């Protein structure tokens, strides 16, 4: 194929292609803390080895749910709430000392305190609805502000 009948047949021989190679050489920094957030998410979802199930109070007794199920459910709910909120992203969800820890980032311009409150309230409500019992306490931490 030629470019308007005058260019080289092979795009990689075009002089501009050197810029594509330069783009390939450009370093893309990994966001600070991303690896740790991933590890925390994975750790939260796989649960602690041998951890006992969580007992949630319910009418006439208690409901036992594994840590993994609670974290997976919380992660899915938090992601849905964040997507609907626009400008909020959930980085990680983990269960520490019987409480859910939700790590979130917000877009520049979004009020972090309002976003955190919204996430905490909605996640708590939705977990309660899905589990049929009061869920573990939900703590939201806004860990970063991103520009886009």
């Amino acid at each position, binding site marked *: 194929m030629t*470019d308007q009948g005058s260019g080289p047949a092979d795009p*990689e021989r075009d002089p501009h292609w050197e810029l594509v190679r330069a783009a390939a050489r*450009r370093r893309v920094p*990994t*966001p600070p803390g991303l690896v740790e957030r*991933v*590890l925390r998410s994975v750790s939260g979802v796989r649960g602690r080895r041998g951890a006992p199930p969580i007992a949630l109070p319910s009418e006439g007794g208690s409901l036992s749910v594994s840590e993994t199920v609670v974290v997976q459910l919380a992660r899915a709910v938090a992601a849905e709430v964040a997507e609907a909120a626009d400008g909020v*992203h959930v980085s990680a969800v983990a269960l520490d000392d019987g409480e859910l820890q939700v790590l979130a*980032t917000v877009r520049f311009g979004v009020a972090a305190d309002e976003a955190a409150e919204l996430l905490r309230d909605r996640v708590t409500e939705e977990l309660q609805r899905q589990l049929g019992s009061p869920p573990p306490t939900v703590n939201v931490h806004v860990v970063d502000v991103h520009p*886009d």
Partner: protein
Amino acid sequence: MPAEEDSDAGLADRAAAGDHAAFDTLVRRHTPMMYRVALRITGGSAEAEDVVQEAWLAAWRALPAFRHQSSVSTWLYRVVTNGALALLRRRRPTVSLDDVHPGPAGRRRSTLDGALVAEATPERQVVRAEQVDAVLRAIARLDVSQRVPLVLRELEGLSYEEVAEVLEVSIPALRARLHRARVALLGQLRERR
């Protein structure tokens, strides 16, 4: 070269058997690549982080079924690429790809003007950086069916065989897509001169 137990394959085997530390080593080793690919495909850093998070969770869930039919890194390329594509399908269609690699205001049209710069004087390095920004913006504007193979082949340096494996397409089909992508990219770069 890593010892057998520290190779990707060895770590994957141990992780599949329940060794959490082995999986964590894979996460530390491959997250920079996963983020780079997700960023180049989605164009947004926050979205790329989400993709990486989900990709690792997906990899953790799928690991017991991993049979080493491809290398671990190729498998992870596939997981993160599929995650990025899934996000693009869900994305609202109003996001401007011009925001992906913003360059200095008012300079976008001129970044590819003039001779391509190779010498490493400070001034020319700045011009070169702007030219590279323009290339990345042009890649981000490509149709996703062209952008993804181009990112994997030209920016990540995967072989044709690896890209075909990641995208689960035949090599002739991949070559055709890549050729169209390269022609489209060059067309954009020339348009902006």
